[in-house]
């Protein structure tokens, strides 16, 4: 059973390798293609920014959710963590387009910030989920109470206890947020469009180039580049987490 599942998960990547393998010059061509390079830049840079922003907002949010008791807390947690993962990304893009698009007081549609906003909504729950779980674990160990009894204020508990003891989880949360942001397409496409070197993300350029017979092979080569890039980045995150452990 396990073998079958592993095969199922790996076969598409292997197929991609085989499909491109017949013509490696395609990969070189893809790497020199300005549109593909632009999409790679937008995707990778946006994923890093989204990862950093997600950790930045996850820390205070997880702190509040760990230490505050209020009515509707469970609902808020569901809306912040589980719901964004089930809410159709296309709908997310549409909502942002109506809320922050043409005709609204703040219009950021079809800009790089729109890419960030769309990806952040879809991806940030991973960072929050990791951070919250760890903060609650530390709270359960009573280390925050010790810090408080010694005279520690909120900033000491946060900066000297919670964050240092959560570095592995924060890195794990960053890594998954980054990965999700790399793969997100529908919300970004609807809210930010696909303007080369500005808002066109990698999955969009793969989809658009794959629609034409002439550029189909280019899309395939570009996909292999993206897959290799993601695997290298995720293995790097995993290695960093392993070293810290």
């Amino acid at each position: 059973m396990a073998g079958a599942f592993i095969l199922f998960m790996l076969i598409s990547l292997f197929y991609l390798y085989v499909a491109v393998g017949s013509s490696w010059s395609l990969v070189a061509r893809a790497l020199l293609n300005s549109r593909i390079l632009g999409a790679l830049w937008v995707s990778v840079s946006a994923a890093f920014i989204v990862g950093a922003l997600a950790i930045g907002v996850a820390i205070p949010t997880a702190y509040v959710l760990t230490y505050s008791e209020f009515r509707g807390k469970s609902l808020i947690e569901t809306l912040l963590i589980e719901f964004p993962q089930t809410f159709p990304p296309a709908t997310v893009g549409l909502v942002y387009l109506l809320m922050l698009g043409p005709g609204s007081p703040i219009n950021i549609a079809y800009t790089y910030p729109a890419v960030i906003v769309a990806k952040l909504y879809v991806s940030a729950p991973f960072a929050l989920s990791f951070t919250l779980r760890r903060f609650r674990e530390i709270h359960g160990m009573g280390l925050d109470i010790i810090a408080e009894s010694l005279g520690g204020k909120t900033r000491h508990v946060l900066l000297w206890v919670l964050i240092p003891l959560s570095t592995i989880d924060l890195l794990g949360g960053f890594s998954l947020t980054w990965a999700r942001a790399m793969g997100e397409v529908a919300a970004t496409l609807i809210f930010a469009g696909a303007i080369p070197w500005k808002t066109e993300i990698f999955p969009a350029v793969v989809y658009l180039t794959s629609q034409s017979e002439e550029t189909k092979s280019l899309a395939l080569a570009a996909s292999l580049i993206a897959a290799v890039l993601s695997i290298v980045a995720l293995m790097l995150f995993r290695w960093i987490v392993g070293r810290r452990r």
Partner: protein
Amino acid sequence: MSELRAENLSKSYGATKALDGVNLTVSPGEFLVVMGPSGCGKTTLLLTILGVLRADEGHVYIDGKDIDDLPIGERNIGYAPQDFGLFPHLSTYDNVAFGLRVRGFGRSEVDARVKALLSLVGLEGLEQRKPSELSGGQKQRVALARALAIDPCLLLLDEPLSNVDEATKAEVKANLRETMRRTGVTTVCVMHDPEDALELGDRIAVMYMGRVIQCGTPRELVENPGGEAVRRLLHHG
């Protein structure tokens, strides 16, 4: 040295009464051991005095001042939990220095006080060790030194010997007794082993089902146990 007074403390978890009108006075410099079977409310009593839990009824006074509304950090109570609660990412030195640093002490003062405390508890040379590299007895001493570092008006120890192996228990106990004698800080210490309690406590408060059923010196308890529950506890722990 401060006086602690718990007045009519009650605390319930749903239908279960963890504390049921506890009255207790601990004199300045006294080492009071709280003993009782599991679930009798010993730890709840400590956490209520510390300020983690709020009593449903009753009050806690330190030197006659009601501290019920004081946040944990402003009570100046040293606390060492059963599992020692050492910060796993910090060295022995940094664990002990924690309370001094958050209170804004200068580097040289922190250094002097940490070194004095580590010497007091006999941990010189282990400054750079992380908690994972320490034995149970050593962890207990770090926790004690850390709690004492803030110069507390009261010390709360929750089962300080329960995670110490038998081989080093006598040494840890001797160190604990000597440290308390030299610092003279008022202490409430939860223990389950009657032998340890009789050996260390100036007085012993016996708790049963959320109430203090007898409080006296070890001699008074041994010579005149107030009921079957106390007698059983003294003989079987």
